[in-house]
């Protein structure tokens, strides 16, 4: 028999726990009424595609850093680029390039989502705002000295120097075309206004969580060119949460990471694909006179010591390659064999170089720390001591190629050999802090640049990339695979994007609701 004191104590306990019990009960009751997964599941069927790419752009202004998966919903480019490296028409239907200018013929009957007509003046405003603004993509457009509006549908870009890669640049996320009115009043930073099939609808959106884009009735390519009535874009920063949202049916498509694959593949209806999206390779920055890597034999020895296949065992989404450009791309040279791992050859080259004492410090960010540590261990085998210093991403990004470190590892996102050469290997390239360039490389590059867009330019750029490889200015090329997961029972037509080397992207226009 329980005492009265104990009974009283129990009653008081019940009472003190009442608020918790009430809260839990309320939460459960509300949860039972919820239907997020069902809502998500119905969305695709009713013509709304829900996609997540991790984080909304800080700004939607042309030239701002935007993940392609976000940018390519409201925006279109002047031209596109297919996987064969061919330029395809989008807002520009024809083009003529000379060493002095690029003339574009624009598509007629195109209007921006705010009703502003798309014309040559709009192109001028966009290109100038990117070139002259504080944007990460200003650099590639600095080659445009002036822009002439010839007539409403013709615009002429006058060039400071022959720039065979300009059309390629115009196809990338560097140059989306936005309403000149939205650029002028600066509203474009938060409210994207493009010419794409889906227009931003702030009223249906939740700031910071979900951006809704609805089919634009005046879209130039017509309703049949797309499958979905609307696209909802999400910004789920955590990979586990994104995988959870896909499994629960809140979203239809997301980028994902290798650790989430097993969980996703175990869920009925979820499929995944991967495509090469990022290229990275070590760069020997300190290659000037007296530099740690001034001797080509030391650089070659380091290249032979690297084993990118071993890296792939640790990081399965990094695929080894022999050179920067893929087969079919301009700059690819079948004769480049790269530097297959050969420790004996590496040691022999070091011996020929007089076995110099080589030690270098290199900066890593948390996301490439493991890769650099693997490389450092491999280089140690031939007596090259590499100390990996880990820094937060901001410090990494602003210092890794600044010349402070003799060696660096980072992304090389250039799509053409012209851009690649100009970015890293020309004597005045921002990525060549030593400022040195061999006479042979300069001569070959000058010849290729002079060839402009002529058919022989292709082979000449192949020579340039061959020399870069032979001089071992860089090596250890790997391509990072982008992983995309989607609900195959809700969405059809998911495939790797036609626009090459862009992360977090699918070809939106090819997607169709399942069964449509």
């Amino acid at each position, binding site marked *: 028999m329980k005492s009265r004191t104990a009974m009283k104590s129990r009653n008081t306990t019940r*009472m003190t726990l009442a608020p*918790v019990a009430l809260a839990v009960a309320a939460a459960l009751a509300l949860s039972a009424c919820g239907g*997020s997964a069902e809502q998500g599941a119905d969305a695709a069927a009713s013509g709304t595609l829900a996609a997540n790419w991790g984080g909304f752009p800080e700004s939607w202004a042309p030239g701002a850093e935007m993940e392609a998966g976000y940018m390519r919903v409201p925006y279109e480019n002047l031209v596109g680029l297919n996987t064969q490296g061919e330029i395809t028409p989008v807002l520009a239907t024809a083009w003529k390039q000379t060493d002095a200018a690029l003339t574009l013929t624009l598509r007629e009957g195109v209007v921006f989502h705010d009703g502003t007509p798309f014309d040559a003046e709009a192109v001028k405003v966009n290109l100038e705002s990117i070139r002259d603004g*504080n944007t990460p993509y200003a*650099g590639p457009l600095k080659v445009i000295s002036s822009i002439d509006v010839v007539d409403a549908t013709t615009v002429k870009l006058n060039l400071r120097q022959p720039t065979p890669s300009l059309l390629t640049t115009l196809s990338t996320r560097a140059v989306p075309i936005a309403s000149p009115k939205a650029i002028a009043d600066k509203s474009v*930073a938060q409210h994207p206004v493009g010419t794409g099939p889906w227009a931003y609808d702030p009223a249906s959106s939740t700031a910071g969580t979900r951006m809704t884009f609805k089919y634009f009735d005046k879209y130039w390519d017509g309703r049949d060119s797309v499958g979905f009535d609307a696209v909802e874009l999400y910004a*789920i920063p955590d990979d586990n*949460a994104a995988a959870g949202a896909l*499994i*629960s049916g809140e979203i239809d498509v997301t980028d994902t990471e290798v650790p989430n694959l097993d969980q996703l593949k175990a869920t009925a209806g979820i499929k995944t694909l991967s495509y090469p999206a990022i290229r990275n390779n070590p760069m020997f920055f300190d290659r000037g006179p007296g530099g740690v890597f001034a001797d080509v034999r030391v650089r070659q020895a380091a290249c032979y010591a690297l084993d990118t296949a071993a890296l792939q065992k640790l990081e399965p989404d990094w695929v080894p390659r022999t050179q920067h450009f893929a087969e079919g791309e301009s700059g690819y040279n079948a004769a480049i064999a790269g530097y297959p791992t050969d420790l004996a050859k590496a040691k022999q080259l070091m011996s020929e170089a007089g076995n110099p004492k080589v030690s270098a410090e290199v900066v890593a960010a948390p996301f490439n720390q493991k890769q650099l540590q693997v490389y450092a261990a491999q280089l140690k085998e031939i007596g090259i001591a590499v100390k990996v210093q880990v820094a937060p991403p901001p410090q990494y990004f602003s210092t890794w190629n600044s010349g402070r470190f003799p060696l660096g590892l980072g992304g090389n996102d250039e799509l053409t050999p012209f851009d690649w050469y100009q970015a890293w290997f020309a004597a005045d390239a921002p990525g060549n802090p030593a400022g040195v360039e061999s006479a042979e490389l300069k001569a070959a590059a000058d010849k290729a640049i002079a060839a402009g867009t002529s058919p022989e330019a292709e082979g000449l750029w192949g020579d340039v990339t061959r020399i870069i490889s032979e001089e071992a200015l860089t090596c250890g090329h790997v391509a990072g695979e982008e992983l995309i997961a989607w609900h195959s029972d809700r969405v059809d037509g998911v495939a790797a994007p036609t626009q090459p080397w862009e992360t977090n992207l699918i070809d939106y226009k090819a997607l169709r609701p399942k069964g449509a």
Partner: protein
Amino acid sequence: MRNLIAYRLAMALPQLAIVSLLVFSLTYLVPGSPAAVILGVRATPQAIADVEARLGLDAPALERLGSWFANAVQGDLGVSYASNLPVVQVIAERMPATLSLILGGIVVAMLLGVSVGILAALRPGTTDRLVSGATSVGLAVPEFWFGLVLSLVFAVKLGWVPVVAYTPFTVDPFAWFQGLILPAISLGIGAGALIARQTRAAMMESLASPYIDTLTAAGVSRRRIVLRYALKNAMVPVLASTGLTLRILIGSSFVVEQIFAFPGVGHLLLTSVIGKDFPVIQGGVLVMALLVIGVNLLLDVSYGLLNPKVRPQ
């Protein structure tokens, strides 16, 4: 009480000034230029210098600090490098999500902590030991782990609540509450464990006081003794620890925001740090410091109401 509020407000000003100075100094000392981040890896030194000049980053540190202070006191925290929007607007858009999360976390922490603390104090022995063990776990396990597990079970497996949690209160109060359940529980468990321990200790002390025996002898009901007398006295130290808990909650909310895709100030600050968006970092930290100081002021007032002895004379 007016004296207390005036005193605390007067103390807040130098606190804010010191916080601002520290944040400004830190951003100034961080190596690398924001212009280099804005312009990307292909930027030339000349282009970086041009952008630095345009952003006023080439001015002497003291001049920049003075200018920032002068503008801040007028409510102008500058313009974000990344979005070109006023920092006040950028932060104001994110504040509701952060405040919702912190509010939810505090409610969960208080409900859980006070209830469990009272339970442990009232039932020494097995229950007390169980509660002590549970609070140890609550303190030891990080919020993100709770968040991931709760999300996996209740959002992914059971589908009771959404994974993408946040809906503004003004848009849909029901969805706001529904989306807040898991993040608030994740955030509140650790703080709740801390409050539970504090409550348990304070309640045990209160219940052991001679006046409790007097009240019991006078025939006052156990329920009334616990809730009306013992708890009121126990709440004084509990409230004091809640101020500390709040600071922990604000820090932890940045992690929980990531897991539940909450578009709050924490996520904003994280991306701003990566992008070296100094105006947003400075503004965001200042606003969060204001929040902490404001809540501490409220706690001090509550403390003063509960315990007249702490009111300044």
